[in-house]
C-alpha cells in the first residue's frame, strides 16, 4: 500500500493495481483478464450487481477500470469524507467478485459489443495487426479484448480460477492520493480482504518480448486515408532511466511542430495529415509505435522520408538545444500529469506494483542526466529502420 498526501486536492483517488493483465492469460484464456474487469463490477459477496456504482456515485464519486497487457487497475475518485466507506467497497468488490452465471452471460454480450465496436474502427484493426505480426506469439501480439471464439467459451469457473491465481498479495498494490488528513484507513485495511490475501504459489513474471522486424501491406475496408505504422522495441519498464530516455527521443522526433518528423513530413513536405510516435511503457519490453496518416499515393515517399530522418539522427547526434527542448516538454508533461490525484495515484501505484520504489522527483533527476552523447550511444541506434516492423494499411 502506498499513499501520498495532497492536502489541497478536492477529491481522493483510491487506485487498486494488480499484475493481472492479458499477458497472464494461459491457453484458452484469451480476453479473460479484461472480461474479469467487467465482471468485477457485477457485484461481490456483499454487494449486489450495480450496488457499488450506485453507492459510489451517490457519494458524489465515480469509478472506472482499465486492463492492459501487464496489469489491471480499478480506481475510484470520491470526496475526502467518503474515502473510508469507498475503500471498503472497492476492496470487497475487486477481491471477492460474485461471478454470477446469469450476469456472466449478459456481460459476455457487452464484451462482444465492445469487440465489435473496436472492429468498426479500421485504425484499431490496423494497429492490432501490427502488434500481431511484430510480436507474433507473445501476449503483446494478442488482443486484450480477446478472440471472439474464446470469449464464447469462458465460464464463471474458469474466470474464478484466473482471479484466484492472479489476485495475490505479492501481485497487488493499493495506491491512495489526495487530502489524507483525518482519513484513518490503517485499521480498516487490517480487517479487509486485502490483508487476507496470500502470496502467489508460482509467480512467473511476464515473458520477455522479442519484436520481429518485417513488413506487411493490408487493404482495409472503410479506411479513408492510408496509414504507415511502425513498431520498435526498447528495454522493458524496469529500466527506468532508459524509459525516460525513450520518452526524450520520441519527443525530440515527433512532439510539436519543431520536432524532426513533424517538421519534415507535415510542415515542410506536407506529406502527412499527422505523424505520431508514442512510447508504450511495458514490462516485457517497451514498444515505440509510429503512425503516419497520408494519402495512399504518398506512402512510398512518407516511408522514405521517415527513414531519412531516422538515418540522419544516427549519422549526426542531435543538438543540445533539441535535447533541452525535449527535456522541457517531457519534464512539464510529467509535472502536469501529477496535478490531479488520479494521475498521482496511478503513477505511484503502478511503480509500486512493479517494485520500483522512488520519490516523485526521481524521474526529473533521471531526465536531467541524459546527454546527446548518451542518447546517441544507447538509444538512437535502437530506432533504426531495419529494426522496425513496418505495416502499410491502404483503403480497400
Amino acid at each position, binding site marked *: 500500500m502506498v499513499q501520498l498526501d495532497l492536502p489541497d486536492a478536492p477529491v481522493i483517488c483510491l487506485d487498486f493495481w494488480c499484475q493481472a493483465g492479458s499477458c497472464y492469460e494461459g491457453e484458452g484464456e484469451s480476453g479473460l483478464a479484461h472480461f474479469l474487469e467487467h465482471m468485477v463490477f457485477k457485484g461481490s459477496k456483499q454487494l449486489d450487481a450495480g450496488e457499488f456504482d450506485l453507492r459510489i456515485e451517490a457519494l458524489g464519486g465515480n469509478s472506472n477500470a482499465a486492463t492492459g497487457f501487464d496489469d489491471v487497475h480499478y480506481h475510484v475518485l470520491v470526496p475526502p469524507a467518503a474515502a473510508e466507506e469507498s475503500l471498503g467497497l472497492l476492496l470487497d468488490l475487486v477481491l471477492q467478485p460474485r461471478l454470477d452465471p446469469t450476469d456472466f452471460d449478459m456481460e459476455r454480450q*457487452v464484451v462482444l459489443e465492445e469487440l465489435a465496436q473496436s472492429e468498426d474502427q479500421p485504425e484499431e484493426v490496423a494497429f492490432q495487426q501490427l502488434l500481431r505480426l511484430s510480436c507474433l506469439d507473445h501476449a503483446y501480439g494478442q488482443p486484450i479484448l480477446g478472440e471472439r471464439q474464446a470469449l464464447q467459451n469462458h465460464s464463471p469457473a474458469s474466470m474464478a480460477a484466473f482471479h484466484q491465481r492472479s489476485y495475490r498479495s505479492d501481485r497487488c498494490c493499493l495506491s491512495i492520493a489526495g487530502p489524507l488528513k483525518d482519513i484513518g484507513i490503517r485499521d480498516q485495511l487490517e480487517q479487509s480482504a486485502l490483508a487476507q490475501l496470500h502470496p502467489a504459489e508460482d509467480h512467473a513474471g511476464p515473458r520477455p518480448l522479442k519484436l520481429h522486424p518485417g513488413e506487411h501491406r493490408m487493404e482495409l475496408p472503410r479506411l479513408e486515408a492510408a496509414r504507415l505504422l511502425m513498431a520498435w522495441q526498447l528495454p522493458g519498464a524496469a529500466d527506468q532511466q532508459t524509459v525516460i530516455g525513450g520518452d526524450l527521443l520520441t519527443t525530440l522526433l515527433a512532439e510539436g511542430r519543431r520536432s524532426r518528423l513533424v517538421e519534415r513530413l507535415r510542415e515542410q513536405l506536407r506529406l502527412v495529415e499527422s505523424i505520431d510516435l508514442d512510447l508504450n511503457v511495458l514490462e516485457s519490453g517497451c514498444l515505440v509505435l509510429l503512425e503516419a496518416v497520408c494519402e495512399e499515393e504518398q506512402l512510398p515517399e512518407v516511408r522514405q522520408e521517415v527513414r531519412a530522418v531516422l538515418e540522419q539522427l544516427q549519422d549526426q547526434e542531435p543538438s543540445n538545444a533539441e535535447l533541452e527542448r525535449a527535456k522541457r516538454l517531457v519534464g512539464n508533461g510529467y509535472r502536469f500529469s501529477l496535478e490531479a490525484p488520479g494521475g498521482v495515484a496511478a503513477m505511484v501505484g503502478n511503480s509500486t506494483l512493479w517494485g520500483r520504489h522512488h520519490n516523485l522527483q526521481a524521474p526529473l533527476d533521471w531526465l536531467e542526466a541524459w546527454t546527446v552523447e548518451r542518447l546517441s550511444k544507447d538509444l538512437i541506434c535502437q530506432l533504426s529502420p531495419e529494426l522496425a516492423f513496418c505495416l502499410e494499411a491502404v483503403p480497400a
Partner: protein
Amino acid sequence: MEQRLLSGGCPLWLIHRPGPEILSAKLWLRGGSSADPAGQRGAAQLLAGVLSRGCGPLSGDALADLVEGRGAGLRCEASEDGTLLSLKCASEDARLLLPLLLQMVSSPWLVEDQISLERQLNLQTLQRQKEDPFQVAHDQLRHQLYGDGAYGHDPLGVEAELEQIGQDQLHQLARRLGQQGAVMVLAGRIPEGVDTLLLEGVEQHRWPTTEPPRQAGPAGLKHASLKSSRDDTEQLVMMLGTTTSPLGSEQALALRLLHCHLGIGMSSRLFIALREEHGLAYDVGVHYPARLGDAPFVFHLSSSSDRAREACQELLNEWLRLLETPLSDEQLSLALAKFRGQEALGRQTGSQIADRHALVLGHGLPFDFADRSLREAAALTPADLHKAAQALLLKPSLSLCGPASAIAAAEAVWSSHPLNR
C-alpha cells in the same frame, strides 16, 4: 480570485490556487463556427489554426520554438460558440508566454503558405473522420437538428467551402476577433506582476473587445426526422436527439439533472437499461453540451446488427419514459449527487477550473454561475424535471449508421413506435 479589466476592454480573471507551480490560461472569444460567414463554413477553425502560425514579432517557427522550448502547451480551437486559446506552462514561464495570447488575436501574421497548410490538414481530417461510424451518425444528426443553420456543420467546415477560404477572408475575420466579446481566465500559481504585464497591453497595443454579453444564440429545428447512412460495419450506431435550450436558460438546469440521471456514471438509467439489463451495448450515453443557443440533447449507442431491432426499441422506450414518467425522489437525489460530484471532479486542475469559468463567462453568465446552479438544483422537484422534458424533448430525430439490414430493422421500429406518432 481577482477581477481586472485589460486596457482594451477584455475582462481578466485571476484564480489563485495552491499546488504545483503551473499556470493555465484561457482566452475565450465569442464567435466560433456558428459565426462562419455564408459560404465559408470552416473559416473560424481555419483562422484558429493559423493564429499560432505567426504573430507580432514572431514567425510561426519562432513562436513554436518559444512555446515548445519552454515545454509549454498552446492550443487554438474553434467550437460552435467561440474560439478558445489555451496555454499551460510552468509558472516561471508565464511572463514570457502569456503575452502571446494577446498577440495571436491582435496581430496574427496569416501567411498564405501557412493558411494553405492548415486548410489542407483540416480537409484531410474531415475526410478521415468518415472512417468513424459514430462521426457519420453524429454529422447526420447535426444536419437533422439544425439544417443549414449556424450549428448545422462541423467546426472543421464543409469541404467545398473550406477549399475556397483564403487569406482575404481570414484577414476580415481576424479584424473582427473579439468584437462580440472576450474573456481571459488564469488559474493556478500566478506569478506576481503577470496581470500588470497584461494590463499594460502588448507593445502598447490595446486589443479592443468587451465583456461577452448575454444574448440569444442560434436556434434549432423543432421537427422529428429519420436519416440513415449505409456502412459495412459490425454494429449499427444510433443517435436519438433534439434541440433544447441555451446554457443558463430557465429549464436548462432541469435538463442537466436529467442528463445526470440518464447518462452519468455506471448507475445511470441508460447504462443500466441498455447495457446491464439487456447487454445491448458497450458504450451508451447522453450528449448534452453547453451552448449559447439551442443545445442538442442526444442519446447514443451502438449495437450489433442482429440486435438492432431490440436496441432501437429500448432506446426509444427510454426516451418515451422521460416524457411519460417523472423521476422518483430517489432518482432525483442520485442525479443531484452526481451533479455535485461532477462539479467537484471538474475542479481538480487549474486547466479544468480556467476552462469552466471561461466557458461560463463567455456565455455572458456570472462568475459564480456553477455555485448558483448547485443551490438552485437542490430546489428542483421531479415535477420540474418532468415539465422540462415535456417542454423540450417532445420530438426527437433518429440518425442511423450501419449495415442495410440493421437499418431496416431499426427503421421498422421507429415507424411504429409511439414516440413517432
